[in-house]
């Protein structure tokens, strides 16, 4: 099924597709965590045709702006870093089940990194 991903606060720059809004295909009843993994795999494809290693500093620096690379290396889980807000249809994911929120067709998932400039 199709969901729409929005990347705000500069996050779009780290992904291959480079767009702020993009449609992504996920499995029926996929959880939000699976979408995060799909996005990260799309990121890796911008570095090489094969899956790049977390030891590659360029890849790791990019990925580290979205998920916790240490946690990924230890557990294989893609965990959003602190400072990124995740919203499902304009509502904070904390009001649902965060990574475990079950997605529905045409959901809009917004990721935005927190800005600090003033």
């Amino acid at each position, binding site marked *: 099924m199709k969901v729409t991903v929005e990347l705000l606060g500069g996050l779009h720059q780290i992904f291959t597709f480079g767009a702020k809004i993009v449609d992504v295909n996920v499995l029926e009843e996929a959880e939000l965590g699976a979408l995060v993994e799909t996005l990260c795999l799309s990121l890796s494809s911008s570095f090489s045709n094969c899956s790049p290693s977390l030891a590659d500093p360029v890849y790791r620096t990019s990925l580290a702006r979205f998920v916790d690379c240490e946690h990924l290396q230890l557990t294989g889980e893609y965990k959003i870093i602190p400072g990124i807000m995740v919203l499902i249809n*304009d509502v*904070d994911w904390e009001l649902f089940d965060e990574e475990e929120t079950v997605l529905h067709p045409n959901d809009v998932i917004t990721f935005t990194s927190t800005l*600090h400039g*003033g």
Partner: protein
Amino acid sequence: RSSTANQLSLEEFRRYGRQMLVPEFGGVDSQIALKNSKVLVVGAGGLGCPALLYLTASGVGTIGIIDYDTVDITNLHRQVLHSTDQVGNFKVDSAKSYLSSLNPNVNLITYREFLTNFNAFEVIEKYDLILDCTDTPMLRYLINDASVLLGKTIVSGSGLKTEGQLSVLNFKNSGPCYRCFYPKPPPANSVTSCQDGGVIGPCIGLVGTMMAVEAIKVLANSYTLENFKPFLTIYSGYSAVSQSLRTFKMRGKKLNCEVCGENPLISKDTIQSGLLDYNLFCGHPDYDVV
């Protein structure tokens, strides 16, 4: 200062008449509420400049400004309260010189200081509402913690490049605070400043102007405990067509928040003693303050 706190002078009626006419504002009562309010603006930069201009013009009675920076030529494209002849002067002095002529009715108090663990409580406790116009996570956590512990509402803004963010935090001690939104600081290497990332002047200016609108709503009691809903508003100056604002519905207060939750770990003591080291917490042990 020709009139008492509970009424307006003829001059004030004329000066503020056009805003008192607006039904949503709330008339004379709201103007008197503004007059009796004390607002602290932390940071007189890209956000602070327009926020200070509009809050001073609107007739907030007392405005504090805290900033230790001096005006630099690289600020001038966006920090429109500072003119070229102020380069090298303290921003608080530059701001005060223009604002006092913009509206002589306003009591302007300047702090030519960094906001630190040691002065935060002393400064913040004198005010009713705090505007966070700073530019590092470290200061945002410090302002939040001291304001929460002193029961102050915060209007929080930020911006970078063509985007901005806006929120009202710890609303009347019942809404979520900065730590409820961001329990953990972002990785230090994921934080970009306006110096490094650049910023379009009127884009950051728009966020500062929105902060003034939110401040007026808080001070004039447009927001109440009944109608206030936690939010995060995101501005994009260069959206596909025109400019855009998106408002997201956010979590409420978190019971396990380290400062506003049921069993807070953070207290006036842990801050003032320096036990809570914001530099260390945000992963910038060598970071300059502000």
